C-alpha cells in the first residue's frame, strides 16, 4: 500500500519505513515555534522539568507578534520572559521589534520553514506551512516545551482527507474563498484529527499566497494539518530563501484516503463567513445588506503583499465610507517595506486607511482595533467566534481582501464589481 505525502514525512521523521493512520510514533522535529502568548508557559514548563539546554539553538524559533509592540505591562512581562530565554540559549531565530512579523508569514519568507519539514508550533495556525509541502501542526505550550527539550514529539498518524479542485476560478475568487467554501461544506469539525491534502488542476493557478491562506485555515475545520504537494510554484518561492536542504515529497498513486471531496470551483463565488463560526458561509450574492463599522486587512491568513496589492488596486482614488475604520496591517518588515516602496501606502493613506506595524493585533482581539458592543467588522482573518475581535456583543465577518476593500469603501458588505471604475486586471 502506498503512502500519502503526510505519511511519508511522518515516516521519515520517525525513522520508520512506513506508517499508517492511527499509529503512535515519536518523530524528530525540524522546527519548533512559539510566540509571546504561548512561549512563556512553555518556558515555565521547560524549567520546571529541569531543562537546562534546548535541543538545537537553530531549530527553536521564538517570535514576538501577538501583543506586540507590547500593548501593556503584562504583555511586556511575557515578551521579557521570551527574550531572556532567547538570550540565555543563544536562539538564532529570535524575532522582536523591527525584525519581527506575524510568525506564519515570517517563517516561510525567511526560509525557516521548508518543504519536507516536520514543524510544530505553539499556535493553532502553524498548519500554514503545509502550503510548502511540509507537515506542520499546532500544539499546546507543554508540547512545545517537550520539543524544545528533546527535539522530538509524539504524534498519532492522521488519516488523510483529499480535496480535489477542478475548473477555473471565477472573478474575485481566491484561495480564501476555496477554503471557506470547503469549511462550509464539511463544518468546523469536519476534518477533526485528519490531514487535509489539496490537489486538482485548479491548484496550478494558485500563487503561494493563496496556498498559505488555504493551509492556514484547515484548523478551522478541526484538521491536524493541511498540505499541498510541492510543484514549480513552490520551487520558485523557496529556492532563493532556503538556507538548508529541503525535500519535495508526493503522495503515491495507491495511497489510502479516508475520504475524497471533489470541488468544482467554477460554481464558487466569493464567500463570506457569518458569525459566530467560520463554517457559516454564504456566497456574496446571498449576503444581503450588512452595514459595517470596521474593516481589517491583515493577519497570517491574508496579510501578504499580494493581499495588500489587491486591496490597493481597489482602493486607488477612493475613500473609506464615513464612520468606517479601515485598518491595514502588513504582516512582516519585508511586506511593509515592499508595500511602501510600491506606493501602496500612499493609496491607503489617501483612502483614509490606518496602517499599523506588523502584529497579529486585532485578529484575536489583542489590540490595534478592538470592537465595541454591537460593532461589526469584515476581516480577512480566520476566526469569527463570539468576542473574537473585542466585545462579546460585536460581530466578525470573514472574507477575502477584495471583498474587504470594497466593503470599506461602500460601508456595507459588497464585492468589487459594485465599485465604480473597477476592472479585474
Amino acid at each position, binding site marked *: 500500500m502506498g503512502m500519502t505525502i503526510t505519511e511519508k514525512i511522518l515516516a521519515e521523521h520517525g525513522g520508520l519505513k512506513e506508517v499508517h493512520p492511527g499509529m503512535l510514533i515519536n518523530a524528530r522535529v525540524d522546527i519548533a515555534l512559539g510566540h509571546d502568548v504561548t512561549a512563556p508557559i512553555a518556558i515555565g514548563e521547560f524549567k520546571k522539568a529541569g531543562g537546562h539546554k534546548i535541543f538545537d539553538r537553530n531549530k527553536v524559533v521564538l517570535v514576538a507578534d501577538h501583543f506586540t509592540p507590547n500593548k501593556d505591562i503584562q504583555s511586556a512581562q511575557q515578551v521579557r520572559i521570551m527574550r531572556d530565554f532567547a538570550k540565555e540559549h543563544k536562539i538564532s531565530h529570535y524575532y522582536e521589534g523591527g525584525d519581527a512579523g506575524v510568525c506564519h508569514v515570517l517563517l516561510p519568507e525567511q526560509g525557516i520553514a521548508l518543504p519536507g519539514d516536520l514543524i510544530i508550533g505553539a499556535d493553532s495556525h502553524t498548519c500554514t506551512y503545509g502550503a510548502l509541502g511540509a507537515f506542520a501542526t*499546532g500544539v499546546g505550550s507543554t508540547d512545545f516545551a517537550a520539543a524544545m527539550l528533546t527535539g522530538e514529539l509524539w504524534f498519532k498518524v492522521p488519516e488523510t482527507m483529499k480535496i480535489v479542485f477542478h475548473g477555473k476560478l471565477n472573478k474575485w475568487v481566491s484561495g480564501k474563498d476555496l477554503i471557506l467554501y470547503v469549511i462550509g461544506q464539511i463544518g468546523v*469539525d469536519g476534518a477533526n484529527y485528519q490531514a487535509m491534502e489539496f490537489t486538482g488542476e485548479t491548484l496550478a493557478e494558485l500563487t503561494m499566497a493563496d496556498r498559505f491562506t488555504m493551509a492556514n485555515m484547515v484548523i478551522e475545520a478541526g484538521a491536524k494539518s493541511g498540505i499541498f504537494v510541492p510543484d514549480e510554484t513552490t520551487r520558485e518561492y523557496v529556492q532563493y530563501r532556503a538556507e538548508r536542504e529541503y525535500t519535495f515529497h508526493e503522495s503515491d498513486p495507491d495511497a489510502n484516503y479516508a475520504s475524497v471531496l471533489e470541488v468544482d470551483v467554477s460554481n464558487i463565488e466569493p464567500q463570506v463567513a457569518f458569525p459566530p463560526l467560520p463554517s457559516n458561509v454564504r456566497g456574496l450574492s446571498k449576503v444581503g445588506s450588512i452595514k459595517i463599522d470596521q474593516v481589517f486587512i491583515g493577519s497570517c491568513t491574508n496579510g501578504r503583499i499580494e493581499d495588500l496589492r489587491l486591496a490597493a488596486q481597489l482602493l486607488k482614488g477612493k475613500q473609506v465610507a464615513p464612520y468606517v475604520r479601515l485598518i491595514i496591517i502588513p504582516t512582516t518588515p519585508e511586506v511593509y517595506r515592499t508595500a511602501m516602496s510600491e506606493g501602496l501606502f500612499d493609496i491607503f493613506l489617501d483612502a483614509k486607511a490606518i496602517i499599523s506595524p506588523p502584529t497579529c493585533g486585532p485578529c484575536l482581539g489583542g489590540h490595534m482595533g478592538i470592537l465595541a458592543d454591537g460593532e461589526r467588522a469584515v476581516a480577512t482573518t480566520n476566526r469569527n467566534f463570539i468576542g473574537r475581535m473585542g466585545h462579546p456583543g460585536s460581530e466578525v465577518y470573514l472574507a477575502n481582501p477584495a471583498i474587504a476593500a470594497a466593503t470599506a469603501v461602500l460601508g456595507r458588505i459588497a464585492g468589487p464589481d459594485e465599485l465604480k471604475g473597477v476592472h479585474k486586471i
Partner: protein
Amino acid sequence: MKFKGKVWKFGDHVNTDLIIPARYINSSDPAFLAAHCMEDADPDFMKKMQPGDIIVAGENFGCGSSREHAPIAIKAAGIACVIAKGYARIFYRSAFNMGLPIFESKMLHDLVQESDEIEVDGDAGIITISGKEAGLIKIEPIPPFMQELVAAGGLLPYLVKKRAGG
C-alpha cells in the same frame, strides 16, 4: 480517578476564545486566568461554580486557538473534569499533557440537566447521575498511552522519567 460534582452544561463547538478570551491571555498566571474562565460563554460562571464541579459539553470542545491558557483556566478554576461528546485535537492533547482530566461521552450531554450531581469513575469508565435510576453511563476508555501520561503527571514528567530510564 473518581470525581463527584455538580454539572455545568455547555453546547457544541465551545472554542478557546469562549473558555478564556484573548483579552486575558497577556498573562499566564493560572489564578488570573481562572478568574475569567468561560466568561464569554457565561459571564456569571465563576460566581456560580464551586471547586469540584464538572463541565459537560457537546461536540468539538476546545476548538480554535491552541492557547493552553484554556485548560489551565479550567483546571485552576477547580473544575474536577470535563466530559464532552468530542474534543478538538490540540485541546485534547494539551489537557493530557498538563493534567486536566477529560472524558468522552456521546450520551451524557443529552441525559443530564444543569445542576444535576454526577459521579465519575474514570477507572471503571462509568458515570452515575445521582438520584436517577438507570443513570449509569459508560465513558470511552482513555487510550493506554494517555493513561501513561496521566500516571506520570503530564508530558514533561513522563519524558523526564523516561529519560532517567524509569
